[in-house]
């Protein structure tokens, strides 16, 4: 068994040697796991950007986007990361408050987002709308609002994500808050009998739903597109809620400590071009932030008629209280 140690050591030394021999700059991006994965957008973006940048693009995956942020916070000024990618708009205020991010100095005026993009520190990456997804062959008449969902018989089950451990879980807290304000706790109380469980992550929750343990799962309006395109299965749809939908915009920011500020800016402005954005829909199953014409698969649904919003300052200040309120209502 000891034979492994020198082997492993040799492997690592050769890796380090390879990194040193490279004289091109390396742009290091911390992101969440599935973004960097083989079938995520990471490899396509890497290949696309490296064609023109004269650099090496390196994605380093953390288990989640918030995990990537925490990693940078722990590493402080010595972090090897230049960019953190994948946080969403529910965490913008908190990320900004860390003081780790530098202003990007770019203008994003040709985007197709739910609202104009004016953030001085963060650039948009992709976006989606939280929604309850169901199987059309099993649910014939899906609820069309939170109140209709509450009025379903108790045997109608949904799976959620825990807002403390997962961004869609947090997204639902914000969605209900944006739609119902002070009455949010009542909605949560009404949902209680329908909640099969609150899973640790989106993947666990969605796995439970696919296994048939619930009638609907909290996911995205674009989730049915995955089944339609990748699995050729048109049976999934999202429930169209009359309250409107709450968007999740994934963002990227440049770290003040980065030695490659210009290269990092170049990447962020390249990321919103239609070339880069065309990679997003069928790898991350989210909407591109720029119009990409017919490169957007036809199976992607049109944007919802009504889009809800919350103010960043309020989110940052009250997020913890809202989570506690929701959890208390369903305990």
């Amino acid at each position, binding site marked *: *068994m000891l034979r*492994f*140690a020198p082997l*492993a050591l040799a492997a*690592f030394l050769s890796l*380090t040697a390879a990194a040193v021999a490279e004289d091109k700059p390396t742009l290091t991006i911390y992101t969440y*796991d*599935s973004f*960097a*994965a*083989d*079938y*995520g957008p990471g490899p396509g973006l890497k290949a696309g950007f490296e064609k023109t940048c004269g650099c090496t693009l390196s*994605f*380093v*995956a*953390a*288990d989640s986007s*918030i*995990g990537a942020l*925490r*990693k940078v*916070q*722990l*590493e402080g000024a*010595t972090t090897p990361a230049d960019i953190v990618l994948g946080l969403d708009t529910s965490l913008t205020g908190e990320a900004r408050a860390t003081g780790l991010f530098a202003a990007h100095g770019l203008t994003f005026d040709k985007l197709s987002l739910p609202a104009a993009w004016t953030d001085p520190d963060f650039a948009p990456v992709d976006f989606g709308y939280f929604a309850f997804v169901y199987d059309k062959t099993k649910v014939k008449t899906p609820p069309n609002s939170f109140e209709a969902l509450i009025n379903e018989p108790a045997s109608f*089950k949904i799976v959620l994500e*825990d807002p*403390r*451990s997962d961004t869609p879980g947090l997204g639902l807290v914000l969605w209900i808050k944006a739609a119902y304000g002070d009455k949010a706790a009542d909605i949560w109380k009404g949902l*209680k009998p329908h*909640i*099969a*469980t*609150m*899973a*640790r*992550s*989106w*993947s*666990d929750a*969605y*796995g*439970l739903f*696919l*296994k*048939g*343990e619930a009638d609907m799962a909290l996911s995205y309006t674009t*989730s049915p597109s*995955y*089944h339609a395109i*990748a699995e050729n299965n048109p049976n999934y749809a999202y429930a169209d809620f009359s309250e409107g939908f709450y968007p999740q915009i994934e963002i990227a920011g440049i770290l003040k400590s980065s030695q490659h500020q210009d290269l990092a800016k170049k990447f962020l402005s390249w990321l919103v071009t239609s070339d880069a954005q065309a990679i997003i829909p069928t790898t991350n*199953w989210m909407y591109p932030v720029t119009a990409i014409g017919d490169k957007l698969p036809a199976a992607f649904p049109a944007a919802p008629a009504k889009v809800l919003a919350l103010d960043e300052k309020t989110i940052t200040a009250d997020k*913890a*209280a809202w*989570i*506690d309120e929701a*959890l208390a209502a*369903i*305990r």
Partner: protein
Amino acid sequence: MLQSADPAIPRRPLRLIGGAAIAFAVAALIGTLFWSILHAASGQAASGSGIDLGYLIYITTLQATLSTVLSLIVGIALAWALNRLRFPGRSLLIGLFASAIVTPGLVVAFGLLSVWGRSGWLGGLGIPIFGLGGVVAAHLILDGAFAARILLARLDAIPDTRLKTGQSLALSPWTRFAVIDWPAIRGTLPGLAAIIFLLAFTSFPIVLLLGGGPAVQTLEIAIYSAVRLDFDLALAVRLALVQIGICAAIILASAALAPISASLDRPAEPRWRDARVARTLQWSVLSLCILGFAAPLFATLLDGIAGLGDVLHQAAFWNAVATSLWIGAASATLTLVLGITLAAARAASLSRAGRTLLSVPAYAYLAVPAVTLALGAFILVRDLGMSTGFTAPIVVVVANALLALPFAMATLAPPLEAITRSRGKLIRSLDLVGTRQFLEVEWPLIARDAGLVVALSFCFSLGDLGVIALFGTQDFTTLPLLMVRALGAYRTHDAAAIAALMLVLTVAAFVALPRLIERLADARA
């Protein structure tokens, strides 16, 4: 029972020193990890998140106690049935049962749903699977079958002479259990109970998956939330210390309760069958357990078939297999060395306090929340100025080896103590040195148990998801990480196939490794 200077026990100062050094190192490591986090937390503002600590402690303790008591009852019944019954496929079944504990909790939970969930095979029965019941059921699968495996090893090691005496006295099945079996398993129960309690207490993915909402949760998720969502490291450390405090009380109680095993021999092929009523009961216990335990695992295998073709063609899959195998092999070796050293020191120790001090750090490590562990190690590695990419494999190997150490202790300490007590006089009269005592007396007798330890810790790191989360990168990916990644990208078939393959690997390890190591030991002797 024990005098302070028992003449029957050979004096082994080196063993005591070795064991004390390991125990101290583990304790120091835990301390350093916490210190690193606190150090990083200094200057951080407290978030003051509203955590209902009282309720968390209550529900976590309730769940862990239920899981432990039920697991032990089921474990004893199943071990009893398996010890008496002989049938084709028995060792495969034992391997399958034992593998549950090291299978990632997520895999077991999904397997459970395949059988009992509302769309499962027995979904029509309408048994509620979400909530406290579901959580305890999943823990029962993980831990009850494991308890049976450990207890079975003790029952199988009952000396032939005792069995023959018992048979000639025509003991009833009940008296046989009370007089012959119970003394053999009694010594293992407290350690086993402590392990199961710790596992259930710190359980996290299963509790969130099957808990049915925030009414059923564990302290571990509050800690996770403090680290991730609130980034309140000081709060995380405080909660972790509460968790360790409660677990330490359980560990100390179990150490105080543990009697010392006194007899051990080569396993005998039993020729003593119980009366018909007892045998019927044994077969029923076995059938129920197969239905309850093996069916969810079997479902996992079936679910995996659909995605198998895809997965086997992925280079990433084979890379992850290679990484998982060498990580598993390295940490299994480390666990075995540490476990034998600690257990031998325990056996050579003359005082109860000494034995407790030697084993507490190893168990306490199990109570350290995974997220704190990963976090502390991450900060420590950075404080030491090492690159996290470079140290990731080392940290994962050490962390996994230490996680398996309590299991190694629970498996190896009773037989080593029994050897010291039953062969001590012989060893002293022959004036054997420690090395020869080990090679000629102890090793041949514990080889099978050692094989179990190797299998356990090998599979433990194979299935690990906790430690690798903060350290894993694109280039350093194990099978469970690959599985979670596939799940995170809608690829449920891939994930199911990886889960099934991990299960196959685990069962194979459990069937093959103990035999392999015993055969090696036989070849030496």
